């Protein structure tokens, strides 16, 4: 590290490297980004792993997330408490799942969680409607929304229970090659 102040110990960095898809440099960059969000909250020195959580209102101001229609869901999904308060570990986790090298399986799992608004482990019509309103600014009429959701359900639902289980979702994603490149946030 030279004469710079150490942010992480070597052990910490190694743990990060072993458990996420990032390199040492990226971890440090992520720390910089995290600290940028709340300079008064986040210390430079993380060697003693302080228990700091940045509230979701600050997290979603990141340029990477600011315009994302799912930003709140993303933040909620990756935060440990489910409310969106993110520790640095959660923060790293989030971008690790979104990074280029993370495998399809992992991305699928997290995408499913993000789309499952009511956390009932199924993407039901209600979830689809929420997704659609987020994606179209709510410009569609309720009938149209309902029609589109029904159609999507009919297309993707294999076992006919009229909601998407994870396996339905996985099946659909495996047929959508763009998913991998789309479910990707460059940091």
């Amino acid at each position, binding site marked *: 590290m030279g004469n710079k102040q150490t942010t992480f110990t070597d052990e910490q960095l190694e*743990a990060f*490297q072993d*458990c*996420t898809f990032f*390199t*040492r*440099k*990226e971890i440090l960059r992520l720390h910089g980004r995290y600290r940028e969000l709340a300079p008064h909250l986040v210390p430079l020195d993380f060697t003693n792993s302080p228990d700091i959580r940045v509230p979701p209102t600050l997290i979603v101001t990141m340029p990477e997330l*600011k*315009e*994302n229609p*799912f930003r709140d869901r993303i933040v*909620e999904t990756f935060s*440990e*408490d*489910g409310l969106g308060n993110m520790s640095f*570990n959660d923060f790293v*986790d989030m971008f*690790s799942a979104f990074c280029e090298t993370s495998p399809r*399986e*992992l991305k699928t*799992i*997290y*995408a499913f*969680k993000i789309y499952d608004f009511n*956390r*009932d*482990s199924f*993407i039901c019509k209600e979830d*689809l409607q929420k997704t659609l309103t987020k*994606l*179209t*600014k709510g410009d*569609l009429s309720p009938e149209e929304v309902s029609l*589109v*959701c029904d*159609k*999507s*359900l009919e*297309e*993707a639902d*294999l*076992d*006919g*229970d*009229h*909601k998407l289980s*994870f396996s339905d979702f*996985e099946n659909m994603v*495996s*047929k959508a*090659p*763009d*998913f*991998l*490149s*789309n479910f*990707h*946030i*460059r940091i």
Partner: protein
Amino acid sequence: MTSYSNGGFFNPAYHDSETLEIDRRSSSKTPLHTNPYARGEGADGHYSTGPISSDDALRRVPRGGWQEESWRGRESLPMGHISTRPRSPSWQHDINHSTFQIPPDSQYDRSLSIRLPSTTSGNMTMRRRGITMRRMSMFPNGDPNHVAFTEDAIRNEMDIEEQNLVKELVALSTRDRIWAIRDLPMSFDEKKQIRSQVLAFKSAKKSRQFTCFADCSENMSLSFRRCGYGIRSARQTLELWQGIMKEIGGTFGTSVLSYFVFLKWLLMFNIFSFLVNFGFITIPQLVYSPWPNISPNVSFRGLEILTGAGYFNNTVMYYGGYSNETKVHLADYNMQLAYFFTIAVYMVLCGIALIFSMASSFKTNYVLADPASNSAWQLLCSWDFNITNDKAVRQRKNNLRVQLKESMSEKAQRERITLSESLKHFGVYLGAWLLSTSLAVGSGASIYYLCQFEQQRATDSANWSLLQEAETLLVPFVVSLMNLVVPLFYSLFNKFEHYSSQRKQIYALVVRNVLLKMSILAVLCYNWMNVVAVKFSCWESMVGQALYRLVIVDFLFLMLGSFFGEFLSNVIGTKLLPRLGVPEFDVARNVLELIYAQTLAWIGIYFSPLLPAIQILKFFILFYLKKVSLTQNCQPPRRSGRAAQMQTIFIALLFFPFFVGAVSMVAFTAWSLTPSEHCGPFRGLNSTFNVVEVWMVHLEETSSSQWVVWIYQNVIRSEIFYFLISLIIIVIIYIFWQVTRGRKLLIHVLRQQIVNEGKDKSFLLERLQNLQKSHPDKRSKQKNPKKHSKRRPDDHSSGGQSTSNAMVQALLARQQLEKEEEERLSTGGVPVPSDISSSSALIQAMQARQRAEGQERDEHYSAGYYESPTNTSSAVTQAMQARQRAQVEGTDDASDPTSSVSSVMMQVMQARQRAEEEDRPQWVPAPPQNRASAGSSALIQAMLARQQAQNEYDDGY
């Protein structure tokens, strides 16, 4: 794609019914459904307190409070059934793995990981999935079956799973282990914990083993890993244009970004080829003869930069500038061999890289793709998380809305197309194809005549006048002009054609452009090989110059193209004709231009080894140019096309006509054409390939490298070898083809099975509804179903629906009974089945009766709060019917009492006991929810009993 009778699933009970799941879950060790809720429940078993509705919150607080009783009611029953079932329950599990603290025989572990790495990792994945599922299904509102575990049991189970995972991770090699940990769908803290456990385990093992070798290997692997991380970091630092890529992706989305990714990829190819050529061909040449023998009357005039002729002619830029000598300085360096092998190896490496990237791209992007599911895809997979620009986001949202509306009206539109209209469309297609093909052929022909004209005027002399030199620019100019203008015509045709999908439209455009470029290149190659090769004394250099000119002029036209294609149409779109709007970036056209440019470089590599340097410069500038042009002039694409598929197609195109064409051109030159006699490394040989033969003759003299000669004689030059190789490859392809077909069939069957499961479910519910309808008088009073439908769909564990499931079960049991009876009558009475059937009937009867009684009692105690008359009444009728039947059968089969009866009796007793136990708490006035659950548990018991009876029936055979 999926077609099923939708009779049942409008019934809310359908979504909540867990019948099938319950059956499956209890019979298989790992649940079939993957449920992605891995988090929330850490190993300490506390529940996450997310932003949950009050409804959720109620369900999430199972312990204490007024709800306690209802939960007990539900909990007690699956517990019971687990212990009665012959599957390995969780406690056994516990015993098996409680030995974890004592490190197992490390020798064994190690040998396992060495012997069966693939198996282990396969298990690994399964296990990981299993864990995920298990953890997820612990989610409080997931499945009533798992609520059964008390908190301790859950914690135990999770610990055990974790320990199992750790054990498996320890068995893996370091690299695999890191990947496995990274892939775990857990939070970082959990991963870290597992990692530290694994490391602790490892170190404990090591201290036990303590051999020098293990220590060394551990250290080695650690340092290798560190080194790998270092390399990765370094590579990331060297990664070009990261910021720009992010910016483009953020504003224009992945599809436009793919152009730039492709450009960068090609740039890497060129950098590699430049390094190889420069290192192995140019540097040795420069080292031994640093100054090219330029005749004194040739001076640098400036036009050379465009034409590549004159001053450059004898430099190392072209083939002619290289000597054929074996340099003897510090070491022998045979220029001929170096030239030949460098080019050959580069081509082979390029081919391999292309094939690999094409194959992997096909695997992920194309083979699996299914065009059928469109709107689901648009909803859930098409959002580009890359996009960070607010304008782009707004536009994308708009586009999505328009697309959805279009897709809704598309069906109606399609039906309206009449015969005459479709004929008209067909006519337009035909016309457009004819026109575009003739345009391609025409431009090929015109270039042919132009080349002939130019050859007539050109003279084979060393120094041309300025005018002569400028004349050489005519052919490249015309070629590039055609490449610029004709595609515009194609785009124009495209506007008149009505393609049903955008994809077909793009494919048509791409095919036409490829045809054009291929015909132009084919004519040029023909000209070089048949005319230029005969006429000029140093013809390779002439071809090199021609290619140099083509590359340079093509670059100029690319700049012009982005000026006309994007800047002008932007001006027109914003100022003159607002109807047209701001142009979009045409990814297909631009990528084809790149492919064309790269093909020129590949062809030229033999004739002008330093052409990649020009190409690098070209692509580098082009990147910035296109970036500026894009951000200044273009808007994000209106349609979010399937960019990944397009990229696959582009790589395939780059490989198939273009790279293969270039290689065959170079190979033909090397094999069949006579190299020029007075210049270049191969002067004096019959063909370029002769250099290898000469080398072999030379090698034969030295005894040490006989094997090289042997390989050359028996492998490279023998037809038998190639014959055998192609035969084997064909056989392998055939086998794989068959395997693929088999897999396809299997997929089809499995999908059908899934659909059938759904059908079964809806059929059962239909039966249930019919049953309910058959008691209309009671139903009119009843409010239960209404209430039910208002309930949140995720409320699985509500009592009413399991009652209904149980009733469906009862119905089924009855049906089966009838069937069995029929069978028995027809076969003339085989004793065992009759026994079983009578016993199962008995169970049915007992259970149903019990339940009816229980519910009656319930009703009695809770009449004030809640009514469930339908269930009771139907249960009563069920019970009566079943009982009657059983009695009838009992009298029939009374002559052969067997042991099965006793087991059945035991079952019944158990079930009854349990039911009574469950009923007891309800004697206390309790909130209305628990009524049905008790009944349901009794019913589930009945189901289980029935299953068991069936098992016995099976065993009987």
